[in-house]
Structures are given as C-alpha cells and as structure tokens.
C-alpha cells in the first residue's frame, strides 16, 4: 500500500522555537509538497520540490523553509514559530508522467504554537 508518512501527528511548541516537520514517501515520487490547511481557507501551498535538492516557493512561503536531501524525504522547517503558524500541515507527493496528477497526502501534522 502506497504511503506518505508524516512523523508527528500532533505537536505543541512555544513561540520562537524551531520546528521540524518530516515527511517520507515510499512511492519513488519525484514531486513533493507542503500545504497548510486552515478553516475557511482550504489548502494553501507553502513549498514544493520537483527533485532532490530542488525547492520552489509556493503561495505562502514566508516564515518557512524546506529541505530535500533525499528523494523520499521532504522536511518543512519553521525557523522561529509564531502563533499564526498554528495549523494543520499536510505533506503530499506525486509522480511525473502518470495518467493522473493525483496528489497522495499524508495524514497531517497538527501544530499548535503557544
């Protein structure tokens, strides 16, 4: 069964802390994405990566950075967490050249910043 795994389902952090959210996919997908999901706003793209060591800004990159050192792993980093980064974070992956552009999502990481 194909899978996108987010290492932490729930995190509580303090303002100013550095936060790492890890995502691993076992499907050998080229593309990986980080979204945040907030009530009434839908999913918004933070960063994405089409290949190892490659990253591109999405629609709301401010306050975030990413790392993709290996094809299967895409990390989201909050250098200094703020309360407005309290949200559900979803990682996704997709494959190039398939019949559908389907994104495979992880189960999400709910981050609360106090």
């Amino acid at each position, binding site marked *: 069964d194909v899978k*996108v795994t987010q290492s932490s389902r729930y995190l509580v952090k303090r303002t100013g802390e550095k936060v790492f959210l890890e995502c691993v996919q076992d499907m050998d997908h080229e*593309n990986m*994405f980080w*979204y945040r*999901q907030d*009530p*009434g*706003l*839908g*999913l*918004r*793209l933070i960063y*994405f990566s089409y290949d190892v060591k490659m990253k591109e800004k*999405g629609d709301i990159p401010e306050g975030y950075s990413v790392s993709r050192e290996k094809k299967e792993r895409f990390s989201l980093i909050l250098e200094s967490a703020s309360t407005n980064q309290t949200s*559900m974070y*979803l990682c*996704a992956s*997709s494959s190039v050249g398939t019949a*559908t*552009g*389907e*994104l*495979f*999502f*992880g*189960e*999400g990481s*709910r981050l609360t910043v106090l």
Partner: protein
Amino acid sequence: GESVGLHLPTLSVQEGDNSIINCAYSNSASDYFIWYKQESGKGPQFIIDIRSNMDKRQGQRVTVLLNKTVKHLSLQIAATQPGDSAVYFCAEETTSGTYKYIFGTGTRLKVLA
C-alpha cells in the same frame, strides 16, 4: 484534521439518496481538475479527476460534471452511504503539467441514517 469544516457549508442527505456537491473554479484556462475526500483525522484522498476536453466522467458510484462556460464543477455520489460522510473539495491545476493546484474550501457531507 479535526478543525477542518468549522466554517464549511454542509450538505445533509439521507442514506441511499444521491448527493451533489458543487464547486466554482477561478481560472478559465485551467484544464485539469480533481475531487478529493477528506475524512476526519485523515489526509485528503483522490476520488476522481477530469480534463477540460471532457464534460463528464464516471467512476464507481461517482460522476464529475464540468461546465466550462460558467466555470463550475460538480461531484455526484449515487446511493450515498454512511462511509461517504466527509469533507469534499475540488482542486484545479493552476498551470498544466505543474502539479500545482488551487483547492476549494470544501463541503461537509453528512449522511443521515
């Protein structure tokens, strides 16, 4: 996630009835659309997709209709079951082949026994 849906429109249907969930999209040039289902505490799951060269596509118990004239997408679920209870949202690919999407805010479907 648990907080998804606090501000969502809700559609309540009787078990066994058909459900129709609607979505308006923004870009008349978009040519690929996906419907996702998100159950409580889980990530979104692919249901069905459609390209702009089609008006209709059918899957198992689901049908997607695309009206490009009014930039409208709908998802029809036949014989709705309790397991269909979830948040449903559409996604449009912003630029063809980029795998970047704009997501709708979603509709919560409640199936009444």
